[in-house]
């Protein structure tokens, strides 16, 4: 069922399984997004609580375009991080990273574990830089990416809007993939 997987340990000693998303994860992924806070989903481009969105995702998995990494604990998805790639064009050496962590798994080191895994995979895929877009007020996310080796490169004032229409500043963060001393290549 799962092409491959790896175990990771969180700060509290609990274990999670890291693996790519597979078609059979449809119900687990839908359940995950329904448990996540609204604020944690506002940066996503799709309505991930709509079963049609998840159906579309799991039925069109192409790991060479989007590598969806999930973290699973006790049979439930507790984290979803995606690496978006382009095969051609002037951004073909770049990857974009997005991450959503279940509320009860935040501040346990799961975000760091998943971002580190995605950076290592990015190196494996031949990417040179990773880009993350974060709301200026999303301090935990800013800290997570900074800790993983991302640096803020630009701030766009009043660029994004939350569900209520409130405007916010967007921080663009970049990670030099091979500048990090990582293992496994």
């Amino acid at each position, binding site marked *: 069922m799962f*092409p491959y997987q790896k175990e990771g340990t969180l700060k509290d000693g609990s274990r999670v399984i890291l693996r790519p998303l597979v078609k059979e994860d449809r119900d687990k992924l839908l359940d995950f997004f329904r448990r996540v806070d609204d604020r944690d989903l506002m940066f996503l481009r799709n309505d991930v609580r709509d079963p049609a969105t998840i159906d579309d995702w799991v039925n069109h998995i192409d*790991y060479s375009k989007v590598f969806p*990494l999930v973290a699973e604990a006790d049979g439930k998805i507790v984290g979803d991080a995606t690496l978006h790639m382009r095969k051609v064009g002037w951004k073909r050496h770049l990857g974009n990273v997005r991450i959503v962590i279940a509320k009860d798994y935040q501040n346990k080191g799961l975000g760091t574990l998943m971002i580190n895994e995605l950076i*290592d995979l990015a190196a494996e*895929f*031949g990417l040179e830089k990773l880009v993350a877009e974060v709301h200026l007020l999303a301090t935990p996310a800013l800290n997570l990416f900074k800790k993983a080796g991302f640096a803020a490169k630009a701030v766009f004032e009043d660029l994004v809007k939350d569900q209520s229409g409130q405007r916010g500043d967007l921080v663009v963060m970049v990670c030099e993939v091979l*500048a990090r001393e990582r293992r496994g*290549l």
Partner: protein
Amino acid sequence: MRLALISDIHSNIQALEQVMAALRRERVDQVLNLGDVVGYNANPNECLELILEWKVLSLAGNHDLALLDPDRARRFNLIAYQAIVWSREQVRPEFQEYLQTLPLVLEGPGYLACHGTPTSTDHYISYHFQGKAVFNTLRALRQQVCFFGHTHRRALWYRDVRGKVATLPVSPEKIRLEPSWHYLINPGSVGQPRDGNPDAAYAIFDDEEFSIHFKSVPYDIAAAQRCILKAGLPDFLAERLVQGI
């Protein structure tokens, strides 16, 4: 002495056979393997057999060490991890014993050889600050040339007499090296090149004329891909071979 430099074979027997066939015509005195015989591709035993048959002077790479140590393997990314777990199940006990004997660093006449850097099999020489640090190590050891692998990309770094550190373009012609400069030389990867050229890469170092010649040979990529897919390894490992990434 004419030294053939090979690195990062990664269980690709189709590529290794073509490189060895090319080396038969090169009149080399010694073949030096800069590590990572195993991992990623599907024929580790065949590659180890050929390495031993040719009496290749070999170093340990991070994948060779991870095959022997599950804790190291767990620090690999998902794809590399899957491949090394598979390799561990395949590699014959006598070859595992052989891998345990491989040194991390090797000093020869006028050169130092390592997999990643002289101080770590895991670290890279990709950026200027990394190259500069290795030149400092090299000078402290009173060596002039360091051969390294790990990045799967051919590279030629120099440090001139004034201390300037930079890279030179890797050309297909033989490159004469400056007698008073220091060099870091990466021959590229035999079994999984990542510099856009999918051919199996190697290099010939001649210490008498002080030159380096980067070379590559085509091989049956489709056969290597079939082996990967048949072994149930991640599809990406097959796809990347044809793209040289």
